[in-house]
C-alpha cells in the first residue's frame, strides 16, 4: 500500500496529464458530431450575447458594403417586379393562387459569429427558437447556399457552414440535371468539391451548380456556384471543383428557409422504408 502511494506521488504529474488529456479528448469527440448541442447550448446563449455585441461593433465598419449589397438586391427585385414588364392583359390566363400551396418560408437573420479558417466552421445567427428557427432549416445568403441550422437556443442558432468537413449537400448540374454530392475539402474557403457525376455527363467549365431539392432541407434550384475545373480521378466519376457563389468571408445577413412540408416528407419516407423491411 505504501509503495503504491509512493508510486502515485512520484508519477502524479504524468498521471494527471493523462487524466486531463483523456477528459479533454473525450469532450472533443463526444461533442464533435451533429448532436453535440447539449453542452454547447449553455455556452452558446452566453457567448452568443458577447458575439452579438462584437458584431454590433463590427457592423459599423461594414456599412458601406452592406449598403452596396442592399442596393444591388433592390435593383434585382425592381427588375422582376410586375410593373416593369409590359402588360399583356388582352390575353386570358389561368391564375394559380399559390398562397395555399406555400411550401417554404424565409426568415431574415444576422450573422454574429463566423469563421472560414477551421476545418469545422460554424456560424452563429441572432435568431433562435423564439423566432421560429428549428434545427435542419436551410440557410441562404443572396440566394446562394450557406449551411444548415444545427442547434438552437432561445435567441441564437448555430449553423453548420458549407465550409465544414461534416457538411454534405445534394447538388446538380443546372443544364442537364446530373446530380451528385457536394462537400468541402478543407483547403480553400472559395471552393468545394462535387463528386459522383458520371463520366458520360456533358459538363463544361463555368456550368452552374444548384441544389437538387432531393433533401427535405433545401428547395430545388438554389445557387451553389460555378464549375471551375474538373478531372477524372478514379473509376467512372468526375471530381469537379466548384467556385462557391457565397463569399463566406463577408457574410452579414442571411435568410433561414423553413420547409412547411418537411415533417410530411420525412414521415412518408420513414413509413416507406419501414414497410420495406
Amino acid at each position, binding site marked *: 500500500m505504501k509503495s503504491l502511494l509512493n508510486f502515485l506521488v512520484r508519477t502524479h504529474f504524468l498521471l494527471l*496529464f493523462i487524466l486531463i488529456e483523456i477528459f*479533454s479528448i473525450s469532450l472533443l469527440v463526444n*461533442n464533435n458530431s451533429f448532436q453535440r448541442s447539449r453542452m454547447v447550448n449553455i455556452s452558446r446563449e452566453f457567448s452568443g450575447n458577447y458575439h452579438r455585441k462584437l458584431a454590433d461593433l463590427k457592423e459599423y465598419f461594414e456599412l458601406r458594403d452592406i449598403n452596396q449589397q442592399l442596393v444591388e438586391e433592390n435593383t434585382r427585385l425592381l427588375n422582376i417586379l410586375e410593373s416593369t414588364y409590359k402588360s399583356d392583359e388582352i390575353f386570358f390566363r389561368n391564375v394559380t393562387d399559390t398562397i395555399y400551396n406555400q411550401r417554404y418560408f424565409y426568415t431574415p437573420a444576422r450573422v454574429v459569429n463566423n469563421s472560414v479558417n*477551421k*476545418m469545422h466552421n460554424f456560424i452563429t445567427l441572432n435568431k433562435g427558437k423564439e423566432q421560429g428557427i428549428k434545427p435542419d432549416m436551410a440557410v441562404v445568403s443572396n440566394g446562394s447556399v450557406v449551411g444548415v441550422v444545427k442547434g438552437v437556443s432561445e435567441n441564437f442558432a448555430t449553423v453548420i457552414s458549407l465550409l465544414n468537413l461534416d457538411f454534405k449537400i445534394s447538388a446538380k448540374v443546372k443544364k442537364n440535371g446530373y446530380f451528385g454530392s457536394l462537400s468541402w475539402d478543407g483547403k480553400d474557403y472559395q471552393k468545394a468539391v462535387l463528386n459522383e457525376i458520371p463520366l458520360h455527363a456533358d459538363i463544361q467549365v463555368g456550368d452552374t451548380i444548384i441544389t437538387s431539392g432531393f433533401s427535405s432541407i433545401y428547395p430545388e434550384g438554389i445557387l451553389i456556384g460555378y464549375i471551375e475545373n474538373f478531372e477524372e480521378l478514379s473509376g467512372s466519376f468526375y471530381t469537379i471543383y466548384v467556385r462557391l457563389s457565397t463569399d463566406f468571408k463577408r457574410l452579414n445577413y442571411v435568410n433561414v428557409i423553413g420547409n412547411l412540408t418537411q415533417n410530411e416528407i420525412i414521415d412518408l419516407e420513414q413509413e416507406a422504408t419501414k414497410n420495406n423491411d
Partner: protein
Amino acid sequence: MIKTVPRYLLNFILLVLLQVFVLNNIQFSGYINPYIYVVFILTLPFETPKWLLLVLAFLMGISIDIFSNTPGMHSSATVFMAFLRPFVLKIIAPRDGYEPETYPQLRYYGGNWFLKYSSILVFAHHLFLFYIEVFRFSDFFATLLRAVLSSSFSIVLILIGQYFFRKDTKRR
C-alpha cells in the same frame, strides 16, 4: 509568492479576452490564426507546482473553447504544452540554473533564451492543436504548413508583447 496571484489572474482574463475578441477574428488568407493565450502558461513562475500547471492549462484552454465552440480542442493542446514545459525548461536551462525571484520572461533571461523557450512550446502547442482539429492524418503537409505559419506568427506576437512589458517595468 501570494502577491503574484492577482497579477496572474488579471493576466488570465486579459489574455482570454484578447484571444477571443481580437485574435480569433484575424484570418489571414485562411491559413494563419495566432493563438497567443499560451503565453500565460509560458510565463508562470518557475516554482509553480507541476499539478497546478496542468490544472491552469486546462482552465485556460477550456475558457477559450467555450468561446470558440470547440470543447476539448484548445484544452487538450494547452495541457499537452504545460506537460512539456518542465522538460523544456530543464533542457534549455542556463549554465548556473535559474535564479530565485525571477520568472521565465524575456526581461530576466534575454531575447535568445526566450525565443528558444517560447518557440519550442508554442510550436508543440500549435502542432497538437491543428492535428487534433483535423483529427486525421490525410492532408498531413497542409496541416503542418498551417501549424508552422500560425506558430511563427504567434511567436512574433508574443515576443512583441514581451518587449512591450519590459519597457513598462523599467519605467516603474
